[in-house]
């Protein structure tokens, strides 16, 4: 049994199946502009690895040597503050790229990237990436656009954490998760991304106990239904009202 398991672990995931040329995730992200020789060069220099849930793609504070692109699965990026407390700064999914800010700024990674679920992630080292970027202005513009969007999101989040009451922040988080990962059902919108209470708390800068209490209150008010980690939004208007957002 052990020998079979070892053999299974040793089996190489067929990199040829995850070619940049046929990758559907590529068309959703900044690499959609790549064609011809540039795409071929990317494909030749990329390495694909399967990360199991909980495995680390890169560590906060470590030097960047490459750019990562998510082929499938989801990754959480978090910063570790004083006392070891984690603050999730982003959740990335298919077609998202990781580590680009550290590469461009020539700084260490600003956050740790950890697989939130099993994920296939491509890596291209900077010595292969930068020449392609230099020859492809559309790719460069796509990266600038991406960085600008993330900067806006980060500023909004910082303002939200600093100024909004915890109840509003939690409601706003549920609405954001609904928008990004919501799946309609007969009862309401089910949030397809299942986070732990701790992860939800980290995303809005509250304690786990406060997150649990707030979810319990929302459940009591019939705004949401909770089944372990699965959350269903039952009353969108009431949640928008709690988040102090207009429809």
């Amino acid at each position: 049994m052990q020998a079979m398991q070892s053999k299974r672990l040793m089996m190489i995931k067929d990199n040829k199946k995850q070619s940049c040329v046929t990758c559907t995730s590529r068309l959703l992200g900044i690499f959609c502009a790549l064609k011809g020789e540039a795409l071929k060069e990317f494909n030749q220099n990329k390495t694909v690895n399967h990360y199991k849930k909980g495995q680390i793609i890169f560590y906060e504070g470590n030097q960047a040597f490459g750019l990562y692109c998510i082929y499938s699965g989801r990754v959480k990026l978090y910063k570790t503050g004083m006392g070891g407390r984690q603050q999730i700064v982003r959740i990335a999914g298919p077609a998202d790229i990781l580590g680009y800010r550290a590469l461009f700024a020539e700084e260490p990674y600003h956050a740790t990237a950890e697989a939130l679920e099993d994920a296939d992630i491509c890596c291209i080292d900077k010595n292969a990436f930068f020449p392609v970027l230099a020859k492809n202005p559309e790719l460069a513009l796509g990266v600038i656009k991406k960085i600008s969007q993330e900067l806006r999101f980060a500023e909004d989040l910082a303002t939200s954490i600093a100024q909004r009451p915890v109840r509003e922040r939690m409601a706003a988080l549920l609405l954001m998760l609904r928008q990004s990962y919501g799946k309609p059902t007969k009862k309401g919108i089910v949030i397809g991304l299942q986070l732990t209470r701790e992860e939800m708390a980290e995303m809005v800068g509250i304690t786990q106990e406060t997150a649990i209490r707030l979810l319990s209150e929302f459940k009591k008010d019939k705004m949401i239904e909770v089944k372990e980690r699965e959350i269903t939004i039952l009353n969108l208007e009431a949640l928008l009202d709690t988040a102090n957002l207009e429809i």
Partner: protein
Amino acid sequence: MDLKKSSTTKKQWDRLIAKGQTLSFKKGQVLFYEGHHPYGIFLLQSGEVKFTKQDTPCLREHFFSLPQGKVIGLKPFLEGRAYSCTCTALMDCRMLFIPKSEWK
């Protein structure tokens, strides 16, 4: 592994090392996971690492040593196969990393 028997000449190694990037790993951080394909090779310049296979210790790798450090992960890299062990820093380590794109 003797440098003289290696198919990579000293001149080639000197060129590769010049292109390398210094990386630091803190105690407990993972350099690479069992089953993953190499992004390049590591030269361990300071510190210590351990190798584990499915959470049990691996037989110690026979290191190929250069003046700049012990080469880690050369065989899987050259043979185009996945790592057979997970490599974790036993203490704060400094590595010279030579990426895949430099081996042309």
